[in-house]
Each structure stands twice: as structure tokens, then as C-alpha cells.
């Protein structure tokens, strides 16, 4: 056993450009995208044929055949086949959770190196047999005689031919995630214009980062796509103002297809290691993963918003590390919806909320918006659920590295099921 823990280093990352649903990656499977992403990482860091300690990755929307998705992707990649792998799934928190898992094993001395990743496709999505049809076919399969089989097959009705398609909805409420976010937006009185402004900043920041070559060593093109398909460098508040609301009801509806993330396909991966392993391989250390925290809220009966869990996780993390919300040089708050980011920031500013819901003596306060999502986030890049964490970890690590040693960044990611994953990185 290692007597002391150490901080895991983030060496670098790789992702494929994110594509809009049924866009450039319409025919690519999760395994195709994750394998390509791993191969891009291998090429960047010269890891051909090498054994990495472990690969942890996952997808939110998985086919039944993807039961061992990450290991199968490793076997198809240029990594050594002796690299173990396992699947992780925590909805939109998958990518960051995978990074935390790998980092913790490195911290404990159980691993010297590891890759954390995530992938999702909403185009090549799994479809399941209608539940009634599935029961009939199971009965046919279990039948022992021809007569039993025929009688089982006689149970088929036309309505059973309709497949079950995955929906972006909460199983316990039947509401789409956007509908949940709209409720929160209304509660916090988040205006249309501030949402559109945040969206425009996301697009402009991402485009500027691409233009200055920031993503040259973070992104590898795939299937002819060289930049995120959702990116609109020339968008503006005026253009976004023309969009009709798609979530929420009536006069107060503010959430549009512009200030909500679209369904997206893509994959990302992050290389983590001990400082020693990085030095032995002549690889850089961009930043260290300092600490992480998860939280969950009762959005079904508890009167809390579906995507508000990070609001709870952050103060716990800050307290444990003796930090205030203002002690950061950069903030990466995942833009599931512009309103989610704004509601979370508002919650931390609210004395009542911080006292009653978070049990704090004083509010966490506000942050310098100029430090928020400085290289763009999900509104511009898109959000292939499990791939977002890897995108953010690698982007923030490089951002901190560029800013110099001793810089600190906060990651906040909300997830379906009322969950949240947050983490601190330091250069």
C-alpha cells in the first residue's frame, strides 16, 4: 500500500470534433468513435503498442452489444492489447467521473497511467423491441415443440412492431431534460437575453480558440469533420433572438434551440499519469486533478431542479480544500442549457438558497464572468453526453498550463437523474 496519496497529472487529451445528430457521424458507432479517439491520443503521445494502466470510459446511450464497449475499443486501437478497460456510466457526468476514477487509482499508487474517456451517439442510437414483442419472442425462443412455437407466435399484434426508441427524458417524471431546465429557469427568473448572451460568448470563445490553434493538440479530425459541426462563429444575440422557444410554456418561455445544447455525436479521452510516469516518457504535465465531489438532488419529490446538483457539490468541495468560490482562475461550467449555468451561478449568489438549501452561513458569491468557459463550452461545441467530461478536463488542463504554474480551475457538470460531478484542477 502506498503510505501517502499523490495528485494525478493530466498529460493531455484528444477528442474528435463533435457532430450534430444525424450529421457527419450518422453512420459511426460508439465503438468507431471511441477507437478513433484513442488512436488519436496514441498518435499524439507516441503510445503505439504500449500498455496503459487502465482505460475507463463509457457511453450513456448503449447498444446491448456494447456491454464491454471500452475494452472492445482498446482492442481495436493501437494500444497494447494487454491494457485493461472498463465501462463507466453516470449520465452526462460519465466523462468526468471516469477521469476521477482513474486519477484516484493513480493517487493511491494502484496505477501509473490511465486513460479516461467517453463517447455518445444520438444518431446510431440503440432501438429496442417493443416490450410486448420482446415477451412474445422470448416465449417463442423458450418453446419446445412446434405447436408451442406457433401458439406463441400467434400472440403477435401489429402494435408490437413499433420499436422503443431512447428518449432524452427522465424516466421518473416523463419530462424532457429541457422541460426540467425550463422549470428551473422560470424559478430563478433567468431571462432570454442573458441566456442568448452566454450562448454567443460560448460560440465566439470556441471559434477564437480554434482560430489561434488552441485545439491543434486537443482535437483530431474524424470522417472529414475538422471542427465542431454545431459551432457558429458568426452568431449574435440578434440572430439568436429570432429563434422560437422550444422548452417551457407560454409568455415566460425563454429556452430555444440556440441556447440549449443540441443532440450531438462524439468522443473524448484524457491521458492521466503519475508525475514519474510522465517524466519517464518525456511527456508534459499540463495540470493535476486535485479533488472531486459528486452530489445528487431529489428532483422528483424534493422540489429541487433536475440539473442543480453541482450547486450542492461545489461548496462541499470548496470546504474540504479550504477554498472560496473566488479562488479560481478559470471556471468550466458545463452548458447543458444556458439557463442551467445562469441558475447555478445565481444560486451561489443567493443568501437564502445558500442558507436554506446548501446549509451555508454565507452565500458563495459571484464569479468573474471573464473567467467562465473561456474556450467555449457545450452550447457551441455540442454535448455528446459521456464525451463532455473529457473535453472539459483536457481543455481546462491546457488552459491552466498556458496560464502558468499555480493556476486553479473549477469544473462543474450536471447530469441526468439529478446528479452533479465537480472537480478542481491545478497547474
Amino acid at each position, binding site marked *: 500500500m502506498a503510505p501517502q496519496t499523490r495528485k494525478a497529472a493530466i498529460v493531455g487529451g484528444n477528442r474528435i470534433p463533435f457532430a450534430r445528430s444525424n450529421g457527419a457521424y450518422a453512420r459511426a458507432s460508439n465503438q468507431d468513435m471511441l477507437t478513433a479517439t484513442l*488512436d488519436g491520443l496514441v498518435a499524439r503521445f507516441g503510445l503505439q*503498442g504500449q500498455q496503459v494502466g487502465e482505460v475507463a470510459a463509457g457511453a450513456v446511450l448503449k447498444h446491448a452489444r456494447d456491454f464491454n464497449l471500452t475494452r472492445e475499443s482498446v482492442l481495436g486501437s493501437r494500444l497494447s492489447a494487454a491494457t485493461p478497460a472498463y465501462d463507466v456510466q453516470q449520465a452526462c457526468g460519465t466523462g468526468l467521473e471516469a477521469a476521477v476514477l482513474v486519477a484516484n487509482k493513480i493517487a493511491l499508487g494502484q496505477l501509473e497511467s490511465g486513460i479516461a474517456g467517453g463517447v455518445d451517439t444520438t444518431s446510431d442510437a440503440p432501438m429496442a423491441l417493443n416490450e410486448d414483442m420482446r415477451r412474445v419472442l422470448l416465449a417463442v425462443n423458450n418453446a419446445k415443440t412446434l405447436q408451442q412455437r406457433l401458439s406463441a407466435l400467434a400472440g403477435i399484434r401489429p402494435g408490437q412492431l413499433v420499436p422503443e426508441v431512447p428518449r432524452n427524458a427522465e424516466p421518473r417524471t416523463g419530462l424532457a431534460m429541457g422541460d426540467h431546465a425550463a422549470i428551473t429557469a422560470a424559478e430563478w427568473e433567468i431571462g432570454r437575453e442573458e441566456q442568448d448572451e452566454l450562448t454567443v460568448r460560448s460560440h465566439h470563445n470556441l471559434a477564437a480558440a480554434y482560430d489561434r490553434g488552441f485545439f*491543434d493538440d486537443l482535437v483530431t*479530425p474524424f470522417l472529414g469533420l475538422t471542427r465542431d459541426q454545431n459551432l457558429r462563429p458568426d452568431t449574435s444575440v440578434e440572430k439568436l433572438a429570432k429563434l422560437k422557444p422550444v422548452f417551457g410554456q407560454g409568455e415566460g418561455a425563454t429556452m430555444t434551440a440556440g441556447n440549449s445544447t443540441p443532440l450531438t455525436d462524439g468522443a473524448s479521452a484524457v491521458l492521466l499519469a503519475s508525475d514519474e510516469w510522465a517524466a519517464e516518457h*518525456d511527456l*508534459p504535465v499540463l495540470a493535476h486533478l486535485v479533488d472531486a465531489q459528486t452530489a445528487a438532488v431529489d428532483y422528483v419529490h424534493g422540489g429541487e431542479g433536475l440539473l442543480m446538483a453541482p450547486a450542492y457539490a461545489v461548496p462541499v468541495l470548496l470546504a474540504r480544500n479550504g477554498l472560496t468560490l473566488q479562488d479560481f482562475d478559470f471556471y468550466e461550467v458545463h452548458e447543458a442549457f444556458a439557463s442551467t449555468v445562469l441558475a447555478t451561478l445565481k444560486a451561489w449568489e443567493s443568501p437564502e438558497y445558500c442558507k436554506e438549501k446548501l446549509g451555508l452561513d454565507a452565500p458563495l458569491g459571484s464569479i468573474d464572468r471573464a473567467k467562465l468557459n473561456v474556450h467555449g463550452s457545450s452550447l457551441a461545441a455540442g454535448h455528446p453526453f459521456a464525451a463532455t467530461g473529457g473535453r472539459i478536463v483536457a481543455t481546462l488542463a491546457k488552459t491552466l498550463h498556458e496560464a502558468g504554474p499555480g493556476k486553479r480551475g473549477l469544473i462543474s457538470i450536471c447530469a441526468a437523474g439529478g446528479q452533479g460531478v465537480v472537480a478542481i484542477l491545478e497547474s
Partner: protein
Amino acid sequence: MSDWYRDFANSGLGTTITKQLGLPRPAELRRYEPGQPLLPGPAVVGSAGEGRLREEVTGLLRDAGVTVVSPVAADGSTDGERLAAVLLDATGLTGPADLAAAHDFLAPALKRLRPSGRVLVLADPPAETSSPAQAAARQALEGLVRSLAKELRSGSTANLVHVPLGAEASLASPLRFFLSGRSAYVDGQVLAVTTADLPTGEDVDRPLAGKVAVVTGAARGIGAAIARVLARDGAHVVAVDVPAAGEQLAEVANEVGGTAVALDITGADAGPRLAAQLVARHGGVDVVVHNAGITRDKLLVNMDAARWNSVMAVNLQAQLDITQALLDTEGALKPGARVVSVSSQSGIAGNRGQTNYAASKAGVIGMVRSWAPEFAERGATINAVAPGFIVTEMTATMPLGTREVGSRLNSLQQGGLPVDVAETIAWLAQPGSAGVNGQVVRVCGQSLLGA
């Protein structure tokens, strides 16, 4: 990519038809494979005048496992096999009269030359004598070798190496190159060697073992071939290309066990960025191949500034800037570094519609020649290769007629392959090629253009 006409000309019916009609008969060229013997048959070494290299050359050949046979009698009679190489030591020339000995040696020997045979003539540089008669005789060899290269058939080549007094040891690496399959598409060329500190104990099968090589424009075509050949010869390849080509670049890097670096080499900080990464990740670089290049063809009168500027930026300015950044960055260029720049036949001969491209490629030659003395002082070298008609994805899109004619306008009557360019670059990158500096080696099958 297959050469359908070459395959046809070498088929049973094709042989008859092409012979009767007097059509070109391109041969299957002997190309290098690791572990291959230097020559597939014996060699003969002759001399014109009292030369100083015959023993040296015979020794080099024997060390490489080549059987050296006696010169062929005037009537062509010999007991041995047909010859794989004919070498002439012409360092003893004193005046034109001595050239008759060259004829007397070569004529019967060439009749016994095998397909893909090699003729290599070694001489003193014409400029290094005060005697006009001696200079004339030495210069005459260029006419002899270039004409001979045009007369040879069946994939055979003839080349000339100038060896000044004192630079004899530098001959070993060019000698091996010109005799081997590595030089399959290098024909009718004149190369000069100089004195240099030469390493000992080089592994001829993996001459670049332990070396780090950076190749720009490595995602496809000739650049990818260069990456493969350098890796085959033992180098760790840092493959560079524009970010948009990242997918193919990663494939090439993974194939050769190298490292992919997505970088726009025309960016303001490209040189320092690359230099910093080479130092941090690889402890510096041994071999730099400036291969990245673009074409934006138009007649000069119709060419806009964007076409002119982009070609200059990628093909010439980036080579200057990156080389300068590597020279300026402490520890970036390792001792004995090799820089090889890809020029072009267009840069020598000119090409209609390519004023921008030809200017940039000619500029590369000027750059290499200007930097050569400084590199020599560092124990390093800088050279250029100028490809002729090389069969790539780009030529595959040319109209059939243009492509067929273009590919036959050379002594080997066929287009070269990307690997031919790559082999020449890999040879210049070898530690043993220290005595080859400031040279422009054409890989063009002795093209009729700009010859």
C-alpha cells in the same frame, strides 16, 4: 498505383507490339528492401588514367559482400555472370586523351550489364585544377555520363560523383546509395562530396536507429512515404501536418510508431512551437525533412495575390522560419543534424502555370546552398531533393494523356514513386552522408525537363 503501360509492355504480347512499333519499354525498377544485398550480381571496377580510388572502391564493394570481377575483354568474352554494376575511377584523367580509356573500359562492360544495372563514374571536380586540359577532361565526363544514362535501358542508371582530394572517405555512403535499389529513380545526376567527420560502425540496415526525425506534410503522399522509410531505417518520426489533416496524420504516425503533431507551419509561432516540443518531448531532433508543399497554379497574368502568397508561405518561408527557429533554440538541432528540403523539377526547369510554385522551389535550392557552410561548421548538412514526375494522388487526377506523356518524358520511361523520393531523403539523413552537403539531388529518372 499500378503503371498499366509498363505492365503491358512487359507482358508477352506487349513485348512484341512495343518492340515492333518502337514504343517506350519501361522496366520494373529494382527497389530497396531491408536485408537485400547491395547488388544482385557482381561488379567490375575500371579506371581511366592512374586514379586513386580503385582500391578504395574495391574494398568498399568487398566489405558490402559484392563480388568484384576483372574488366571485360574487348570482345565481351567473360566466364562470369552478367554485371550488376560498372564503376569507373576517372580520378587519373590528365587530359582529353585519357578519355579513350573510359570508352575502352565501359563499352564491353555495358554489353554485359543486367537489368536495373548501375553505372557509377568517380572523378575530381573540374574546378579543382589549374590545367584547362584536365578541367576539360573532367567536365567531359558529365556529357558522357548524362548521355550514357539516356542510352541505358531496362531500368539501368548512370551517375557521376565528384570526389575532391582528401574527401575519399566521404564516398562510401553515396557509393552504397547509387548502387543500391534506394536510388532506383535517380539517374544522370552529378553529386559532389566534401571532407567531413564520418561516424564509424553504422548499421547499414537501420542507419537511423535511435534518431528523431521530423517530417512536415506527413499525412499523405510523398510525406507519408518519407515517414515510413525513415521509420523503417530506425528513426522515431515526428509527423507534422495541418490540423485539418489530423485524421490521416494520426494514421501515419500510428503506422510508423511515431508522434503526430498537428501544426500550421505558416503560423507566426510555428517554428518556436515545434522546436520547443522537439526539445521537451524528444530531446532535440536529428533529421528535419521540409516536405510540406502546396500548388496554386495559374498563369502569372491571371494569378491573384492569395495564390502567390500562400505558395510562398508554405513552400519557402516556412522552411526558412522553421530551420531558423531550430538553429536558434538551444538543444533543438542535435549534433550532426541533417536537414533535407523538398524542392521540385519545376524549380529547376520552370513550368507553365507554376510561376509561384517554381519560384518557391527554386528558392529552396538557394536556401540550401546558402546555409550549407554554416551547417558544415556544426558537423551538420543541409541538402535538397528535387522530385520529377512522381505518381501520387495528385497526378492520379491528371487527364490520362497528360499523365501518360508526362510520366514517360525521362530516361526510365516511367513516373517515379513516392518511395523513390523518400529513399533519397533517408540516404541524405544517414550519419554516413556527412560528406554530402549543399547538394540538390534530382529524383526524376533523368527527366527531359530542365536537364
